[in-house]
């Protein structure tokens, strides 16, 4: 699948863009020319040879702050997506197999999570439970879980009612074998798409939270937090928000392109509406011989 994605021009472009951003996120601290917390010149300077992107309102180097901020912004988005995957996909797959009561209850909980106004909950709950970056990621991770739940459930339903699974059941395959061999292969592409989409959404949400000073407070460098301080000094340097905004947008764009590329090569429609058919999982244990 990776090879097929890289064969598409859009997929290749997305992969290169995201690799560059990943390098910035991993090695940002080494690449940064200055200390992100120490003033290096006059406040609110324009771009120059010494400060490539100028300085902020207390004279700190903008480029260094963005590079340091990349680490937190990117990796918290990754953690959000992984938490969402863990909390969403596993119950989603299980909802097909664990019986009616579990199915009903898990579907109602997912309905609830979907109807919740996302950002306001992320902000309020994070601030209440301790206002740290770990709390923020847990909360956002749980809030993005429904996407993974639905995707995993839809794919599992699809697979479990298909003839080749029935054939596997008839030939005496165990539940674990069927999941590894059949379910997983069907579930993987849509989950990869959901993962790419969630990474983008997670990045925006984390940036929104840090913009509000939730999860991470200034002077700690984050893309969202820097954007907020740029906003305060907008009359003096109207183009300042451009740099963190462009980084956020480039990352989200790259992830969207990647998701589209995976969708194209895997033939997924990408629609995550609930499947129309009712859950009728194939019996997983062969009938005992009489």
């Amino acid at each position: 699948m990776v090879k097929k994605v890289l064969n598409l021009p859009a997929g290749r472009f997305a992969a290169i863009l995201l690799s560059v951003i990943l390098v910035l996120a991993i090695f940002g601290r080494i690449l940064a020319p200055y200390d992100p917390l120490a003033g290096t010149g006059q406040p609110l300077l324009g771009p120059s040879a010494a400060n490539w992107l100028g300085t902020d309102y207390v004279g700190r180097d903008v480029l260094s702050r963005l590079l340091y901020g990349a680490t937190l912004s990117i990796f918290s988005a990754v953690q959000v997506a992984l938490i969402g995957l863990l909390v969403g996909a596993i119950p989603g797959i299980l909802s097909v197999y664990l019986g009616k009561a579990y199915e009903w209850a898990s579907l109602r909980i997912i309905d609830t999570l979907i109807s919740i106004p996302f950002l306001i909950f992320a902000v309020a709950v994070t601030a209440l439970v301790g206002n740290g970056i770990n709390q923020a990621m847990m909360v956002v991770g749980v809030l993005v879980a429904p996407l993974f739940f639905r995707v995993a459930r839809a794919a599992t339903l699809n697979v479990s009612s298909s003839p080749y699974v029935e054939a596997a059941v008839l030939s005496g395959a165990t539940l674990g074998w069927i999941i590894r061999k059949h379910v997983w292969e069907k579930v993987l592409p849509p989950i990869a798409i959901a993962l790419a989409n969630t990474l983008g959404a997670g990045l925006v949400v984390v940036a929104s939270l840090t913009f509000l000073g939730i999860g991470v407070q200034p002077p700690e460098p984050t893309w969202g937090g820097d954007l907020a301080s740029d906003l305060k000094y907008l009359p003096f340097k109207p183009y300042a928000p451009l740099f963190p905004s462009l980084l956020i947008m480039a990352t989200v764009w790259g992830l969207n392109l990647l998701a589209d590329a995976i969708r194209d090569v895997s033939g997924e429609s990408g629609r995550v509406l609930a499947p129309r058919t009712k859950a009728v999982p194939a019996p997983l244990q062969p009938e005992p011989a009489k």
Partner: protein
Amino acid sequence: MSTIHSTPPSLGPASCRTPGEGANGAAGAAKAAADLRRLQAKRIALGVLKPLGVFVPVLLIATFVTFLLRHISGLSPAHVKLGENATPELVRQIEHEWGLDRPFIVQYLDWFGGILRGDFGESWWNGTSVTEILASRAVISLSVAGLALVIGVVGGFVLGTLAALFPQSFLDRAITAVATFISVLPPFVVGVALIAVFAVTLHWLPAAGYVSIEDGGVGLWLSHILLPAVALSLDTVADVARQMRVGLISAYRENYVTGAIVRGLSGPRIFFVHVLRNGIGPTLTVIGMKFPNLLGGAVVTEAIFGLSGFGQYAADSALRGDVPAVQGALVVSIILVVVFNVAVNIVLNRVTPAAARGV
């Protein structure tokens, strides 16, 4: 149920009559009409009850989780009021005054009963009624979210329809490109950009603040909420436009549209009667799913544009540890979302009866 949907109501009783029926015909037609009315009434009732059946559990779970927040956070009014001076005796005394030493289930029922009466309790911060503050703040948030919804729906409908009417044309590609671009823009980036351009550089619109209609008239009110609403709506414009385009294009491919063209019906008539009604369903669903974002996204837009709506109130209260205020704001936002979704579902069932059957 499903058979009645496939026959348009107007063709019902009259065309069912066979020529040789004679005197029995009138009575038969009346009976058929009554049957049809009964079935339609049943359908409308189902259209209202079914969404309610989905959303009542949602409301119960969401309020319960919201109530749990105090226990999860471990906050108490004593800490908000006393700060550093908290001694165990004082803490116990204050918690007793607020009734927090009662059993969990009693507290929950008391709180839930209050919500049903529209009473969200008192703020731990300054003892004011949360309901009163929320009511005054909700006006601001709903003004912005409402205008954003209007912009999103109208903008999305127009763009999506234009793209669908001229598929594969330059216009279609341009609209698709714009929709893709603006769906990548985070709302706070759009907000900052709008302020930088329209407020700071061009001085056309105010950068921050809110003026109510009573204080400044519709013009001033609109000028203050226009930028935040636009910032909030772009995502909705993009999604509605894309869904609308897909829905209409696939509806145009249906055989009954070809049939209508062959019968010589006019273009507008085909569009409004045959295509729009059948192609709009998924778009309505998308609008229903977008509303929570509009309401929740208000937290950020309100911070950018200096609006003191209930998103801002929730964020400020959460940072102060004022749990009842946060709970109130969250419950109100959930109720608004649920009510909106029930409304969308009812409209959906009216417009495309097929939606009432499946899914």
